[in-house]
């Protein structure tokens, strides 16, 4: 398969802090999707991007197909943001989205 790399593997934030997660890929992609997997294991869609930037509340994501990366920025972190964040990407000639290994986020009071 094609490598999809997520950084950092783990991240710890205090409530109210902000930080960014990154997803790097080795070839041109159709799009990227970001998920949060909560403590119950449910994969919750945060964003799908085919280009540019999207924002939703405290979350913002960008997709740079040319530079081959995507970012997810979280501001004003809350306890419920804890979980594992995955990016999934699909190459132009591929048929199924592939996942990075995830970033485990812990938000502390």
């Amino acid at each position, binding site marked *: 398969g094609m490598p999809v790399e997520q950084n950092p593997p783990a991240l710890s934030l205090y409530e109210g802090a902000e930080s960014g997660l990154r997803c790097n890929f080795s070839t041109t992609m159709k799009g990227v*999707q970001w998920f949060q997997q909560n403590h119950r294991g449910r994969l919750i869609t945060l964003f*799908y991007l085919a280009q540019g930037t999207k924002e939703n509340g405290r979350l913002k994501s960008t997709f740079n197909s040319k530079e081959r990366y995507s970012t997810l920025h979280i501001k004003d972190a809350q306890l419920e943001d804890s979980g594992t964040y995955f990016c999934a990407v699909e190459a132009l000639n591929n*048929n199924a*989205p592939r996942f990075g290994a995830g970033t485990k986020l812990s938000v502390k009071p």
Partner: protein
Amino acid sequence: ETAVFQTPNYHVTQVGNEVSFNCKQTLGHDTMYWYKQDSKKLLKIMFSYNNKQLIVNETVPRRFSPQSSDKAHLNLRIKSVEPEDSAVYLCASSVLGWNTLYFGAGTRLSVL
């Protein structure tokens, strides 16, 4: 809102048994997928179907076989389970050409 339904939620079985997992989506999507999430939380694509036709078949052991009766259903059968099959199996769907993946809640398989 849940629109991809998986059954069962959990299944415990012994080595060598056969198991079958069901997945149904009510979104009207053309494409369905099975992913395996292992104990390290790595998510790997196993199969992808588009309108009942197999389009992606990753390198999975032959004891795994997907079954699709129509574009809304994609089941997964495992003949003769092995200990390494213990994992969470996640079903997803999307419109043709991807756009957004919608996941079910998963089936956790434990092989004793």
